[in-house]
């Protein structure tokens, strides 16, 4: 195996934080090399170094036997590295085809060659098995479709440069499956394997260790900015990886079944045009109710209707003994808290300090007679950091400087600080590492056990199975069944979600 890319003892600090503290790593031609590690382990920084976004403080980066010092993302692209970032980089107003070919649009006589642009996009989408019209505007796509277009863009870079001097031979995929359903995932895996057989070297980053085991040839574990080990994927198991990632043994939380308390919210035959229909359930104090369903099943609408940010068109939603007031603000006054699914655009104020984020949903708790108290804000921030184990040097640190897991903890801290009697959570651990995931799960369980009702919507089925006391499964906007959490299996839930009749028990 010949190394296409190798990194030797790469270091990078941001202020006092050592993001990379001596990473060494090599990538061979025609291999899928998985990078795993907790959030904050340095994966993102490593990717940014390879993609030319960040310049390392020291260490060597060798591509194709030549030492490189990327100044810009363009340098990295010219050196043959195609990257699919976690933060999607598509332009909403342009078509799929224009987005896919954005890096190197085909031109004839100085004008964009639309026909060849269209052909190239069709080819890239076909590789991923996606049925999308290239002339569709990206702004109208679902999250999963956007993610696939993003991958298609990188695939196009690889095929458009094939046979040229700067041909792309390295593909970096950073959490490419976070929004994908199982079918889309397997299509993506097929495309990745096809590229591997063509000799493309692939760096694959994922929190989903099962994906890593299914796809990777070799695995490198990062912890605290340094390489722990690189080993072949054959014969590897998740426990070994998790131990290397966290540096200690992690025990699966064993939960006792509890009896739920009084009803605190209820859906009575609720419909919201085009999203859900005839949904009824009851939410009780002390329980975690999971909501499962495929993409497009309307599972998010259940959370958003309860939170008051979507409106129902039929039926009745009861909150704390009265009709739902119909807005988040009013629902908050009745003791509701809502953790949205996208911490970066919906949950947090990225450029603002941890402390300000922590108090954003409860400004009155840090003010008196309409005046803010700066010390109270700082203390609230420090309190959230301590209670949720947020790793940062100060509550004044901007949230954007934190890793995904720590950001998510701040987001939970913001709401749990209010001690909501009803907590509505969407995708509690999206893009979060195992350690932070466990911490967040523990917090949710503790909050429910303390007497609150928690409604969790998640596309991560194992997560729902681990957390929920009951799971409501949606199929095409209707409840296909409500199953008992501790005894449910993945197959049971998937069968209901797919609309099939479960086998008689």
């Amino acid at each position, binding site marked *: 195996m010949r190394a296409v890319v190798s990194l030797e003892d790469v270091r990078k600090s941001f202020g006092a934080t050592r993001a990379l503290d001596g990473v060494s790593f090599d990538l061979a031609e025609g291999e899928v090399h998985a990078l795993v590690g907790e959030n904050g382990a340095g994966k993102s920084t490593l990717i940014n170094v390879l993609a030319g976004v960040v310049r390392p403080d020291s260490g060597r980066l060798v591509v194709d036997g030549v030492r490189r010092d990327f100044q810009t993302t363009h340098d990295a692209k010219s050196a043959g590295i195609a990257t699919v970032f976690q933060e999607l980089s598509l332009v909403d107003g342009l078509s799929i085809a224009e987005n896919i070919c954005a890096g190197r649009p085909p031109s004839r006589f100085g004008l964009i060659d639309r026909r060849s642009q269209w052909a190239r996009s069709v080819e890239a989408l076909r590789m991923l098995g996606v049925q999308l019209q290239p002339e569709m505007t990206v702004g109208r796509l679902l999250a999963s479709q956007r993610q696939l277009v993003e991958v298609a863009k990188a695939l196009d870079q690889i095929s458009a440069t094939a046979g040229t001097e700067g041909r792309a031979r390295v593909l970096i995929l950073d959490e490419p499956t976070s929004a994908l359903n199982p079918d889309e995932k397997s299509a993506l895996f097929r495309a990745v394997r096809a590229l591997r057989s063509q000799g493309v070297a692939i760096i694959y980053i994922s929190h989903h260790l099962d994906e890593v085991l299914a796809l990777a040839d070799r695995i490198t574990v990062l912890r605290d900015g340094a390489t722990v080990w690189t080993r072949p994927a054959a014969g590897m198991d998740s426990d070994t990886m998790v131990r290397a990632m966290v540096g200690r043994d992690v025990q699966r939380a064993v939960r006792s079944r509890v009896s739920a308390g009084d009803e605190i919210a209820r859906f009575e035959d609720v419909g919201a045009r085009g999203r859900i229909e005839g949904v009824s359930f009851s939410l009780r104090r002390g329980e975690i109710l999971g909501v499962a369903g495929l993409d497009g099943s309307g599972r998010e609408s259940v959370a958003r209707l309860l939170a008051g*940010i979507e409106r129902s068109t039929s039926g009745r939603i009861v909150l704390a003994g009265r009709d739902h007031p119909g807005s*988040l*603000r009013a629902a*908050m006054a009745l003791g509701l808290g*809502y953790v*949205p699914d996208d911490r970066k*655009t*919906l*949950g*947090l*104020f*990225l*450029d*603002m300090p941890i402390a*300000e984020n922590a108090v*954003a*949903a409860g*400004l*009155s708790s840090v*003010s008196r007679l*309409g*005046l*803010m108290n*700066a*010390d109270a804000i*700082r203390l609230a921030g420090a309190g959230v950091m301590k209670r949720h184990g947020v790793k940062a040097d100060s509550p*004044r640190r901007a949230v954007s400087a934190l890793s995904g897991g720590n950001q998510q903890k701040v987001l939970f801290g*913001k709401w749990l600080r209010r001690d909501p009697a009803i907590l509505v959570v969407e995708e509690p651990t999206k893009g979060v590492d195992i350690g932070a995931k466990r911490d967040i799960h523990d917090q949710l369980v503790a909050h429910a056990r303390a007497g609150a009702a928690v409604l969790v919507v998640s596309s991560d089925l194992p997560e729902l199975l681990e957390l929920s006391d009951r799971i409501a499964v949606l199929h095409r906007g209707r409840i296909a069944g409500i199953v008992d959490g501790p005894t449910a299996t993945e197959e049971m839930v998937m069968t209901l979600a797919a609309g099939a009749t479960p086998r008689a028990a």
Partner: protein
Amino acid sequence: MTATIDHPAPTSSRLRHLGSLRELALLLMIAALIAGMSILSPYFLTPANFQAIVVGMVPTAIIVVGMTILLVSGSFDLSVGSVLALSSTVVALLLLAKVPIPLAILAALLVGVGFGLANGLIVTMLGVNPLIATLGTMSIARGAALVFTEGFSLSSLPPAFGVFGKTQILGLPLMAWIMVAIVIAGDVALRRTRFLRQVYFIGGSEKAAALSGIAVNRVRIVCFVVSGLLASVAGVLLASRLMSGTPTAGNGLELQALAAAVIGGASLRGGEGTIFGAVLGVVFVALISNAMTMLAVSMYWQMIVTGLVLVIAVAVDMLTRRKS
């Protein structure tokens, strides 16, 4: 240093106060400008010139308070210069129609509130971009002022109306003290009050603010109303000083206020800026044009220099930010 460990709070909040390098840099540049000019011109450091500078910047300094609040919320208001003109003509028209002075002033202020409310409703309820919305009301207010006056200035106002320009307190006219009061009140309100603190969250991320239970539309409307009200306050004070209502007054004032706020550290992206900084920006620009007048530089050159100062200030800020 055990004291700081036991009581870290005062240190951190003080640091944060000094933390704004932009305000510090502006203060230093203002000091340097004053020192340099005192050497270059014997007329610069005189009470008369000081008073001229202060009186001259009253409208901009009052308007910049509202503009900064809007900028922090991620918005802005281009109609302020025209609303100033319209308010000054409304107060003059009413005074000429023998309406009592307090009532005439109140009516002029209501004009400002009305335009602010209209701006706020158009931006929030109709979802029109603030640039377009306030560009429209800017033209409407200016047009209205010209229609009411048929393009002429309205003079021969009752002498008692001149109180804001003529009454001297500690060497400055009453209108200057009103400006000082508005600036201090505005700065404290934006820093400390819960209501205006929400503006930073809205400017930081409007969606996240709404999902944190902040009444985004209500806050944004209030910001526009404050901006309109302050523009009409400036219009009344200007009419009192000039003893006339002028339909062409305040032309380009909205851009001067925007420029000063940005020089003072506000960002068009929203989420940052202080009134203290913005007012320092007004002072800085006012001093530069005063200095150039003293040095007999033509008005036309002054515009070029003001433009350069704006671009350089923002460019330097972007560069320092990129490094950190």
